[in-house]
Every structure is written in structure tokens, then in C-alpha cells.
């Protein structure tokens, strides 16, 4: 099972990923941009005027071939602000979006493990032979 998982992982990591054609590049870029006038829709999905204008601009820049995908995203972000990015950047203050949940999860696990360890430590000790003798005697007396 581990072998299969390992092989799949290696295959997945080395597979030629990323968009192949210009249209795939446009679709990928616009899927990662939020429509500035709608709620919860990407530029790729939306039919709003602003989304269509952004889609056309992305298509124009991809066709011109002068900018990389990152530069095109940067251009749109510079015009419409960081809120247009559906996937926040992982640098500067924005990195907190990624780092904070991980930090909170690690801290919560630490607190949980500490609490479990403490509870395990507080468990009452096993009864000694004398304790068992006292209980047995008490039960005998009760029955007689």
C-alpha cells in the first residue's frame, strides 16, 4: 500500500502540470481572480461587465506573450487591489492567511496532548493487595 502511494506520489510530482495552451492559461488565470462586482464568483465564471473586461485584458496579455502569469496577476492586482486574488499571496502580511491556521492547529494539538497527558497522570493508582483484601472482606461480611 505504501509502495503504491509512493509510486503515485512520484508520478504525480513529476507529471507535466500547468496549462498547455493559451486558452488554458487564460482559464487558469481568470479562475484565480475574483469578479470585482459580484460576490463569490470568479472572473472565469462571471458574466458581469467588469469580469468580462478583465477576462478580455488577460486574454490580450496572454496573446501578446509579453508577461508571465505572475506578472499578469500582478497587473490586475495592482489595478483592482489584493481582494481580486482568490488565492492570497504567501508573502508579507498576506502570509498570515496561510501561517496563522497552521500555527493555531499546532498550538491546539499541543494543548490537547498536554491535557490528555495530564489526565492520564491523574488517574487513580491500581488497588493494592491490601485494598483488594479489604474489599473482599467487606463483601463477605455483607453476604453473611
Amino acid at each position: 500500500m505504501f509502495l503504491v502511494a509512493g509510486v503515485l506520489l512520484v508520478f504525480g510530482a513529476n507529471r507535466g502540470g500547468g496549462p498547455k495552451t493559451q486558452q488554458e492559461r487564460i482559464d487558469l488565470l481568470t479562475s484565480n481572480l475574483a469578479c470585482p462586482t459580484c460576490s463569490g464568483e470568479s472572473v472565469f465564471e462571471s458574466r458581469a461587465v467588469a469580469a468580462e473586461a478583465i477576462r478580455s485584458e488577460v486574454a490580450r496579455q496572454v496573446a501578446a506573450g509579453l508577461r508571465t502569469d505572475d506578472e499578469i496577476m500582478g497587473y490586475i492586482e495592482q489595478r483592482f487591489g489584493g481582494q481580486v486574488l482568490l488565492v492570497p499571496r504567501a508573502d508579507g502580511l498576506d502570509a498570515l492567511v496561510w501561517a496563522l491556521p497552521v500555527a493555531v492547529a499546532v498550538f491546539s494539538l499541543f494543548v490537547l496532548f498536554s491535557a490528555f497527558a495530564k489526565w492520564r497522570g491523574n488517574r487513580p493508582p491500581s488497588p493494592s493487595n491490601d485494598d483488594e483484601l479489604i474489599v473482599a472482606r467487606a463483601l463477605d461480611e455483607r453476604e453473611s
Partner: protein
Amino acid sequence: MKSKNLVKFVSAAVGVVVAMFFLVLLVAEPDNDTVARSPLLGQPAPAISSRTIDGESFVLERRKGSWVVLNFFNSTCVPCINEHPLLVDFAEAESSKPDGAELYTIINDDSSESIRDFFARNGGDWSKVTDDNGAIAVAFGVARVPETWIIDPNGVVRLRITGELTEGLLGRQVEMLREDFTS
């Protein structure tokens, strides 16, 4: 005991953060200013070129030397219609000044015919620039109309006004910018 202290410390920290959050919400001014922020402010205006509905060429860079006002407009948008008389007044006032600002309408998702009809009915003899595929709107980061931008004679973006203009706002802003940025 140590763990109890840690829990107390974390609870106190969370409490402080939540309290600060509410404090910020309480103190923060609502974001309803018409004069809006943009990363383009203080930067050279995007290089845009297009044509007017009359077929003349429009290259923003060639307008250097004059104050330029770009008004993003759609003839069916109510705030655009409402502010139109103010733009007519502004254009008239500026035309009588030696260094008067040039006003341009940037057509946003509208046909040349509708624009011609609108201006024939409501006045305004300044140039109306077509924006095929919204390239100019994207270059300025305009998502909704109306929006009005002021560009100084050096081609630097100086002001962005989002939403409907109010009486005298545009004239006042151009005058203030003229005083601040004309050497």
C-alpha cells in the same frame, strides 16, 4: 499548574485580540468617501489609446501639458445620468480658463449610438472615447461606473472619485490639485 497558567495566558490573549477587534470596528470611519484610494495615485497614468465615437484618435499620453479629467460613463447608469449636468457645468467653467481641464467620457459597456443620443438630449460637447473590451477600465481598475479620474499636466494620476459626483466637487478638487501641483 503550569498548564493552567498557559490556558489563562492564552485566554487573556484571545480576549485582548477580540476586544481590540471590536474597538477597531467601533472607532473606524465608514468607507463612504467619494475620493477613493488607488495604487495608481501619484503614478504615471496607464498608457491608453483608443478612438472617439467620431473616429478621432485618442492617446492619453499626448494630452500631457493639460489637466485631464476622465469620466467613466454608461448612458443607462442612474448615477451617471444624475451627475451629467454637473459635468456639463464643469466643462463650461473649465473652457473659460486659460489652463482649463480637458474632459473626456470613457464609454463603459455602451454603444456609440446610445451615447450620441444621450449627449444630444442632455448636452456635453467634449470627446467620448470608446473602450473596446473594457481595456481602459481595467487599466484604471474601474469595476463600476461612474468613476472620475484627474490626471495632471505631467501625466501623473492625481485623484480618483468613485460614484456620483456632488455639486462643485470636481471643480473644487481640480482647483486644489492645480494649486498643489502646478509649479
